[in-house]
């Protein structure tokens, strides 16, 4: 398998838009064996920090080569564990402002349990295992490294 085929596109510059998500969904209308779609979207929160400053966005960086390898393994494990028709994972790089989407996980299956459980499984593994770091940007321009969660 070539690197190209093995590693599906994951990282997108800036936020993942509702239109991008709608397009991803619409592409599955032609797959007539699909009965269920499950989606997870991570949205950047305007958390208030100890000093009262509000988060205005998160700047993401990744160790892309290693993250793609990790995601490939997570994807393989999910396909082995759940009876899925399709699986898509997108993560932002660079600045994502408060209220915008930075993570989009999308699973599809014939029966609903597989899509629902696989989506949950993927989100938890991505959060724990993928080489991505977020830096919260505060109102003043100061930055705080996001804590794992």
């Amino acid at each position, binding site marked *: 398998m070539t690197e190209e085929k093995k590693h599906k596109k994951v990282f997108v510059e800036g936020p993942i838009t509702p239109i991008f998500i709608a397009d991803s969904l619409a592409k599955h209308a032609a797959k007539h064996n699909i009965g269920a779609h499950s989606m997870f979207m991570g949205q950047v929160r305007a958390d208030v920090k100890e000093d009262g400053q509000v988060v205005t966005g998160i700047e993401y960086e990744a*160790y892309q080569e290693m993250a793609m390898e990790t995601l490939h393994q997570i994807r393989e494990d999910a396909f082995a564990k759940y009876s899925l028709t399709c699986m898509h994972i997108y993560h932002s790089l660079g600045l994502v402002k408060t209220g915008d989407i930075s993570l989009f996980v999308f699973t599809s299956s014939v029966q609903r349990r597989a899509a629902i459980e696989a989506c949950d499984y993927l989100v938890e593994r991505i959060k724990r*295992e993928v080489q991505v*770091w977020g830096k919260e940007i505060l109102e003043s321009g100061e930055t705080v490294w996001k804590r794992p969660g």
Partner: protein
Amino acid sequence: MMNVLLFGRLAEICGSNNYTFDLKDTDSVCDKLSEDFPEIKRLSFAVAVNQKLVVQNTELNDGDEVALMPPYSGG
């Protein structure tokens, strides 16, 4: 020579996301950086060699890529 990649807070503290060293193993890399930037001793981070996580001290060869990675915080 080996390329050392630094991510997140580590890159910030060390003033660069990329150093080139000529050292024999991963412990030496960590020691060298801790000497120059003592603040990183307080951080927990994982080490990867050529995109594979290593948990013990690992010998390095010319051209290896070493990554020092704080806890991931994507999503």
